[in-house]
């Protein structure tokens, strides 16, 4: 790589400009750096403990809010400032080697603390009791595998995984292709409307769709949109989210997620479709291909990479789908999914052992995805 050699060369040049500086440490900078970092951490810790235990010191909520934002953001900035001062104070040979790590380690520290360490600790806890204080061997796994609710959740999760990503991609492609044929304003407006749910929380979306699925007793006016349409065609009003036949209730919950995610798929696919070279389409047209043939044989192969990316992204999201089920049925009427089962074991039942065992099952399910991510990254780097 040419970039590497030029880095070495220029670093050598910079050093030869000022030879003394590269040797000496700067104790003042080191000291200020360390003291600064310690003071910041100490001050922030006390500030936030004060927020928690003595909110009356600050008057009202708004004051706490503003102080918290300034403290949090400013504190992080100052922490970096002092860290850099500390590194710059080190003798140059040490500091040259240390700078990259000073840049990446604070970020990696968070990743390590919040994701990597907990992954192993969770595996560890899955062999421990309900409050993670003593080992119980495989008892948690025996309990969850013996629980019909667990298998029901796995089955539902598989259904979600089979249906949602595929439907989202299909809608995404349709919307992206059709909106591309509209006038500029029409395209912008229609895409905005379909994209809008992306900004809405899962909880908000469930509230919105709760109105669509609402039920009133027969004879009363139906205020739910679905029941209003259903009864207009002569049907009896239904409590939609309680219908287990053909997994209808699960499918109606999937509709909420599909509604939320099509905008995301559309955005990615639309930019991919706009990247398809016009002359490939023109050439096919001259060869006498119809619009449908052009779509399947010219456009789709060229956006295949994006389709896979969208599919995998939605797949990962669906694997952990929680909010919609938790808020709407909380797993009743056979709608439970793994992430909701986990939450209820951890939060409502206080069964940390079983909860972590469920997460381990989830972890095993994402291993192929980790492999895919790394492979995908390597391919992209090779093409860069």
């Amino acid at each position, binding site marked *: 790589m040419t970039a590497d050699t030029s880095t070495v060369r*220029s670093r050598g040049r910079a050093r030869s*400009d000022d030879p003394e500086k590269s040797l000496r440490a700067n104790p003042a900078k080191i000291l200020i750096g360390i003291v600064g970092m310690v003071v910041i951490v100490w001050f922030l810790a006390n500030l936030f403990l004060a927020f928690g235990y003595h909110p009356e010191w600050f008057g009202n909520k708004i004051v706490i809010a503003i102080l918290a934002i300034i403290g949090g953001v400013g504190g*992080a900035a100052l922490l970096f400032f002092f860290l850099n001062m500390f590194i710059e104070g080190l003798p140059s040979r040490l500091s040259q080697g240390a700078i990259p790590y000073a840049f990446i380690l604070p970020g990696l520290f968070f990743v390590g*603390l*919040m994701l990597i360490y907990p992954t192993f600790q969770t595996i560890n806890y899955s062999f421990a009791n309900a409050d993670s204080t003593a080992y119980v061997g495989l008892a948690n796994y025996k309990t969850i595998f013996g629980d019909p609710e667990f298998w029901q959740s796995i089955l539902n999760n598989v259904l979600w995984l089979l249906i949602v990503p595929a439907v989202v991609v299909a809608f995404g492609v349709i919307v992206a292709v059709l909106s591309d044929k509209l006038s500029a304003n029409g395209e912008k407006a229609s895409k905005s409307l379909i994209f*809008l749910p992306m900004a809405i929380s899962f909880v908000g979306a469930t509230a919105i769709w*709760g109105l*669509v699925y609402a039920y009133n007793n027969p004879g009363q006016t139906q205020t739910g949109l679905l029941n209003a349409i259903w009864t207009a065609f002569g049907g009896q009003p239904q409590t939609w989210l309680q219908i287990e036949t053909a997994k209808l209730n699960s499918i109606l919950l999937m509709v909420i997620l599909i509604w939320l995610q099509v905008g995301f798929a559309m955005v990615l696919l639309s930019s991919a479709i706009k990247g398809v070279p016009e002359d490939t389409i023109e050439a096919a047209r001259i060869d006498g291909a119809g619009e449908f043939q052009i779509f399947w044989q010219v456009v789709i192969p060229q956006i295949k990479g994006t389709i896979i990316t969208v599919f995998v992204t939605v797949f990962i999201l669906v694997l952990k789908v929680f909010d919609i089920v938790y808020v709407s049925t909380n797993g009743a009427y056979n709608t439970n999914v793994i992430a909701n089962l986990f939450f209820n074991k951890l939060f409502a039942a206080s069964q940390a052992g079983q909860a*972590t065992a469920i*997460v381990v099952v989830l972890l095993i399910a994402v291993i192929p995805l980790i492999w895919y991510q790394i492979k995908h990254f390597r391919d992209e780097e090779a093409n860069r």
Partner: protein
Amino acid sequence: MSRALMKDGRPRSTFSIVTMSILALLWTIPTIGLLVTSFRTRDDAASSGWWTALFNPFSANWTTSNYSGAWTGADLGSGFINSIVVAIPATVIPIMFAAFAAYAFTFMEFPFKEFFFLLIIAVMVVPIQVAFQPMLNILGPRGLGISGQYIAVWLLHTGFGMPLCIYTLRNYMSTLPRSIVESAKIDGCSHYQTFWRLVVPMSIPAIAAFATLQFLWVWNDLLIAKLFLNSSNTTVIVKLQQLLGTQGQGAELLTAGAFISMIVPMLVFFALQRFMVRGLTSGAVKG
């Protein structure tokens, strides 16, 4: 079938116009239903569908009492403020840390660089559920005792947003011309100066894109807020989830509450839509 041309000379496609209109309508109707219902009185909402109010706007009883009821009575107002306090630092802090890391991954050579970056890519897919029991132990009464406070949630969102943020920013920074960074070095700038004066200003589009997405994720999050915030610090989304559980008395506040929780994300959406699009197209997968 009309073969008329549009202004830009492409043929007008009736099929596309009709299908897209139907789809856009289908996607919008549920939200309109919520908005209309939130302005109706309890009795109206219980006795007729929201569309009747929309078709006869002058005979319907409109009210804003649902909003005042939800804001003060159901305490969504304090949840709203809490959401702001949670979301702003939880957006800014991870970006600050990640930008430094992305700079190092893009412009520096050091041992184990590829290993560290593959680690970041791998943990992007790890479900955040792995963190809950261990972090409840570390942050909770058995550990630091900060669980329930804002700072606990900031730390968690910083950790969970970090891999994706590093990845997105690094992807963007590697499209910047290396020659600029090289020449800054020759001019005697330290990495710290190069970072603040050159790379950060040039990376603003990517930073804004990620910030928009991270803000929405944090604002809309239920799981972390529910587990790691105590009831006086909890966010508007958790308050809304608690409202969703209520039947009968107070049920009319739900629609207004849902809309209160959606106002900020909607404003972000309409003001920063292009940043959102850019963030998503830069290859975002969140774990």
